[in-house]
C-alpha cells in the first residue's frame, strides 16, 4: 500500500485551491465515479493474470487529486474536468498551477509519476493538449473520456478506453450482459469497500469482494484438485458434441449449435455435487447429462 501523499500539503493546508473537487457537482461526481471504476476494471486483468496490484484513492488532498492510482511503483495523478470551458489559464492559471506544484512535489519526493487532465469534450481535449504548458508537458497528458450515464456503458467502450472484459470474465462465451454485470459489480464493490488508514483501496480488495459476495462471475484460477474430477473429465470428454472448460474457475459448457451455460464455480459445493452425480450415473449422451448439469 502506498504511503500517504504529500503529508505536508494535506496537514498544513498549503494548497490554496483545494475544493474537494466536484463534491457539490453531481455530474462531475458521476464523471469521476465512473472514470475511477473504469480505471479499476482496466487494470484488473493485470491483477488477475499477473498479480500486479493497483491501489487508488479519490480526493487525495494533493494538488492534482481527483483520482490517484499507484501500480508497479508508478503514481498517476488525475484531475477530472467535466465542464466544457476549462483552460489552463482560467482563474489566474489555477489548473496550470496545480499541475506545476504537483510535479514539483513529486520530483521533490523522488516519485515516479504521471499527471493527467481528463475531459469529456473533444474540443476541450484538443485545446488543452495544444496549449499544454511546456513546464510540465513531458509528464502530463490530456485524456478524452466520454461522459457516461451508467457504469454499464463501459462494457461497450472502444479503444483507447476498451476494457479487456474477456480476461476478467469467468465465461469465455458470454457477451454484453455479462460484461455489464461485471462493471456494475465492480462499481458497487469499489464504493462499498473500506479504505485503509491512508484512504486507499486496492484492486485485490474489490476483486475479493466481488468474488466472495458472488456479485459477478470473475476469472479465478483453479488447480483442478477435486476428488473424482479426473474421471468425470474423462466421462464428459467422451460425450459426443459436448464441450466444457474449467480453466477460469467456473464450469462452463457448450453443446453446439444452440446450447450453453455456466452456473457454478468449481470451488462451490454445487460443482462437487455435479461431479458426484456424474460419477454415479455415468452419462454417455447429452440427453443423459442434461439433467445433471449444474
Amino acid at each position: 500500500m502506498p504511503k500517504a501523499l504529500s503529508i505536508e500539503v494535506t496537514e498544513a493546508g498549503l494548497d490554496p485551491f483545494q475544493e474537494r473537487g466536484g463534491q457539490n457537482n453531481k455530474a462531475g461526481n458521476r464523471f469521476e465515479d465512473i472514470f475511477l471504476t473504469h480505471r479499476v476494471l482496466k487494470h484488473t486483468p493485470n491483477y488477475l493474470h499477473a498479480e500486479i496490484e493497483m491501489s487508488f484513492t479519490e480526493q487525495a488532498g494533493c494538488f492534482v487529486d481527483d483520482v490517484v492510482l499507484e501500480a508497479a511503483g508508478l503514481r498517476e495523478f488525475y484531475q477530472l474536468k467535466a465542464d466544457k470551458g476549462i483552460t489552463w489559464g482560467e482563474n489566474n492559471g489555477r489548473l496550470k498551477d496545480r499541475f506545476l506544484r504537483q510535479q514539483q512535489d513529486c520530483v521533490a519526493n523522488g516519485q515516479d509519476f504521471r499527471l493527467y487532465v481528463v475531459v469529456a469534450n473533444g474540443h476541450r481535449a484538443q485545446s488543452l493538449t495544444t496549449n499544454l504548458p511546456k513546464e510540465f508537458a513531458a509528464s502530463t497528458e490530456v485524456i478524452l473520456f466520454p461522459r457516461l450515464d451508467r457504469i454499464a456503458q463501459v462494457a461497450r467502450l472502444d479503444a483507447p478506453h476498451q476494457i479487456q472484459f474477456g480476461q476478467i470474465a469467468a465465461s469465455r462465451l458470454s457477451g454484453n450482459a455479462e460484461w455489464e454485470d461485471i462493471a456494475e459489480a465492480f462499481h458497487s464493490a469499489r464504493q462499498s469497500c473500506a479504505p485503509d488508514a491512508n484512504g486507499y483501496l486496492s484492486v485485490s480488495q474489490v476483486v475479493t469482494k466481488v468474488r466472495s459476495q458472488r456479485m459477478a462471475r470473475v476469472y479465478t484460477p483453479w488447480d483442478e484438485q477435486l476428488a473424482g474430477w479426473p474421471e468425470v473429465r474423462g466421462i464428459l470428454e467422451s460425450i459426443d458434441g459436448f464441450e466444457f472448460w474449467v480453466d477460469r474457475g467456473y464450469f462452463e459448457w457448450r453443446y453446439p449449435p444452440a446450447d450453453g451455460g455456466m452456473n457454478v464455480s468449481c470451488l462451490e459445493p454445487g460443482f462437487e455435487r455435479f461431479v458426484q452425480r456424474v460419477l454415479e450415473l455415468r452419462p454417455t449422451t447429452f440427453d443423459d447429462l442434461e439433467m445433471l448439469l449444474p
Partner: protein
Amino acid sequence: MRRYPESIGDTARRLVDELPTVKEVIHYRAVMTRLGEQLALEVFPRLASLDGIVLICTNEDADFLARGLLDGLKAQGCEPSLVCFWNDRVSLGVGDDRAPIVRRYVEQATAARTFLVVKSIISSSCVVRTNISELVYDLNPQDIFVLAPVVLKGAQDRLESEFEPGIAGRFKYVWFAEDDQSKENGEVIPGVGGSVYELLGIGDSKSKNSFVPELVRERRRLLHR
C-alpha cells in the same frame, strides 16, 4: 388500480383478469399459453416483416406463454428463431438487482430484424433488460417488441432508462394490464397472482433453473437431426 389498454379484446381481458385467481398448475399453464396466443394476435399486425424475427423468452415462460405466442405466430405464417435464457438473480444493493444468464439456448439468427421479448410479468425489468442487452448490440434489430400480459406501472421507463436513446427508441410494447401496486418483496398486486415459477409448477426462483422446457428439447432435436 389496474389499467387496460383501450384496444384490448374481450378474450385477452378475461384471461388476464382470470390469471391471478387460478390456483391449479395445469389450469394456470393453460391460461398463460392462451395469453401467449392473444399476444400473437396483437403483435402480428404490427410486424414490419415476417423475416428476421427472434423470439426471446426465459426458461420458465418457454413452454407456456412463449409457446402460445410461437404457435399464434406460426398460424399466421411467421417462424421466429428461438432464444431461451435461464436467469439467476443477484442483488448488488437495495433496488439494484442483476439477472445473470446461467444457461442459454440460442438459435442462430442472421439478419435479425425484430426482437419479440416475451415475459409473464415485467416489474423491475431486470431480466428483460439483461436478455435484451445480451443480444441487441450484436444483432442490432430495428424493432424491439416487449410483450407481457401484465406490467407494473413505470416498468417501461425503467427499462428504457437502461439503454441509450438509439436503442430505447426502438422499443414497442404489448400488454394487457398495468398494475400500480406491489408488495415489499416486489410482487405485483394483483399481477399474475404471485410467484410465477411456483404457479407454473416449476419450483422457486432458484430451483426453477433446473427446469428444461420441452420447447427447447423439441427444437434442439430438430437442430441435431
